[in-house]
């Protein structure tokens, strides 16, 4: 495969730490936009990000980021910014120097580096505390100063390992807005996060990982289609839950109909959602049950994730 200069490409990538599997046979390519890596601890998200940025080398396979590899560090790291989840900093450094000196290593002159540093600090909301020692920062501030360093040189690919950890709701919302603004400029933003609701809301696509394998990849709805065989959940709020549950059970494709604790909602799991909606129309038109609300209960990353890897996505 010829590496595409706009894509991030993983070609049959495996990484083993001795006999321990990091990731295995990873194949995918990512277009610009926001991509979320989702999976529980140890699923290989950080390994994938470290491989992408050259902090570790693949045992097998090849990785191209915009047609470049980390073996070309000058070109590569002008295009890539990585905010790792290592919460450690050079001893004695302050927020300003933490961003300024790496920019000087990029080859920026003193004035340009100072300008970019101030701009990054403002974008991350750290301008006021930039001259304080990083050791005195709160966890959220440390997270934001790392983010500021990652975006300071205006990379085309921004890799963010758990970037929302430790942020208060306001900072989280600002960071998400920043990611979306960067993605809108045609750049890649790769995010790993365990806050699935936020990933769901901001992602253009997801990569679901489990035990070192990519179990699904694509847009959320595409991923949902990949697991079409798995029963879909539909939540119905109605006036007569037991009647609806009994009618649903008569259908072959319904595998479960559960009355929820409020007594007015039924959670139906079906292999054929369209057939179930037809039944629902019949029941409603027959006047047996009044339906207040119908909603798919699982068309988000969290539930897809639960389907795919049989685990609680909320714990990822």
């Amino acid at each position, binding site marked *: 495969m010829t590496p595409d200069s706009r894509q991030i490409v993983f070609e049959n990538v495996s990484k083993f*730490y001795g006999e321990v599997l990091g990731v295995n046979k990873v194949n995918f390519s990512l277009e610009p936009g926001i991509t979320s890596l989702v999976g529980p601890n140890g699923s290989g998200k950080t390994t994938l990000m*470290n491989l992408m*940025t*050259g*902090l*570790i*080398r693949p045992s097998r396979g090849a990785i191209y980021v915009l047609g470049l590899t980390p073996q070309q*560090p*000058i*070109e*590569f*790291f*002008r295009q*890539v910014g*990585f905010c*790792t989840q*290592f919460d*450690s*900093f*050079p*001893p*004695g450094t302050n927020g300003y120097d933490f961003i300024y*000196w*790496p920019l*000087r*290593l*990029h*080859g920026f002159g003193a004035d340009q580096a100072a300008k970019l540093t101030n701009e990054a600090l403002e974008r991350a909301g750290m301008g006021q505390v930039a001259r304080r020692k990083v050791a005195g920062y709160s966890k959220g501030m440390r997270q934001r100063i790392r983010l500021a360093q990652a975006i300071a040189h205006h990379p085309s690919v921004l890799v963010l390992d758990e970037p929302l950890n430790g942020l208060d709701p306001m900072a989280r919302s600002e960071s998400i807005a920043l990611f979306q603004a960067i993605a809108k400029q045609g750049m890649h933003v790769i995010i790993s996060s365990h806050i699935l609701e936020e990933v769901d809301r901001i992602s253009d696509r997801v990569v679901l990982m489990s035990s070192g394998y990519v179990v699904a990849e694509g847009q959320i709805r595409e991923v949902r289609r990949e697991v079409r065989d798995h029963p879909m959940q539909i939540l119905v709020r109605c006036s007569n839950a037991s009647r609806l549950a009994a009618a649903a059970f008569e259908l072959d494709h319904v595998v479960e109909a559960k009355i929820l604790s409020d007594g007015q909602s039924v959670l139906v799991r079906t292999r054929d959602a369209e057939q179930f909606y037809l039944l629902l129309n019949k029941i409603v038109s027959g006047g047996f049950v009044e339906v207040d609300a119908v909603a798919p209960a699982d068309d988000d990353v969290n539930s897809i994730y639960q389907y795919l890897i049989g685990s609680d996505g909320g714990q990822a």
Partner: protein
Amino acid sequence: MSFQDLVARAQNWSKEQPWRLYGSQISILVRNEVSRNLRRRVWIYLLAFIPVLLILIHLMVGRHNLDVDQIEADTDVLAGIVQLYYFRLGTFFACMGIFTWLFRGEMVERTLHYQFLVPVRREVLVVGKFFAGAVVAIALFETAVLACFCLTYARFGAAGKSYVFDGPGLAQLGSYLLVTALACLGYGAVFLALSLLFKNPIVPGVVIMGWEVIAPIFPAWAQRLSVTFYLKHLCPVSLPLTGPLAIFTIVAEPVAPWIAVLGLLCLTIAILVLSCFLIHRLEITYTAE
């Protein structure tokens, strides 16, 4: 491929390299590393200045014979301090502390990834860090050797001044400073490479120390793989040692001073080239530290 082809390739490669960027990156790395090292290595200051303190105490509390014969005796004492303490212990352990910490210390502190995520070739990183370590080690130990020299001869007044400026004193000082700088470069390169080869470079460091002591009993070609082999040829004063200590003064195969200097620089460069290969194998796996 002919020799001309190889030369042409090398020239093309050289023209493609952004040497100015490399130079500015090295100067930034040196600046950052020097300030970091100078701040945090208090025990290395002690290692460098213990003989200075001892000489100072001796001057303050001792009874002194200030005749000319004593200058010769003190010259031998100074030679002993430089050759036995500084070359074999002081610079050795200081370089172990400074140069192994350049990469391994950053692994322990979990900050090395910042160096790997900037557009800097890893070879440039090795060279920049090596220069930074060398600046710190050379500055400390040359200052200490200079202080020892000044304190040794200052107390003799006019006779001491005459020994230094009209006699062999100044040449000896030049030799000591040269050998100190070369010792820092040689040991520095060795410990930098060891820190990239081993998670705990202390044990191989002790093995290297043993090798430096016993190298004189090995064939001449093997001796060339030790740092002290080159340093001994540059020492201006022979130590009058007898018994087991004489092993420190054995010169199996005399070589010219310029060959000794060139030999040590070549050894240093060869070890740095090895380090440049090793750095490409290095991965950020802090959990393994």
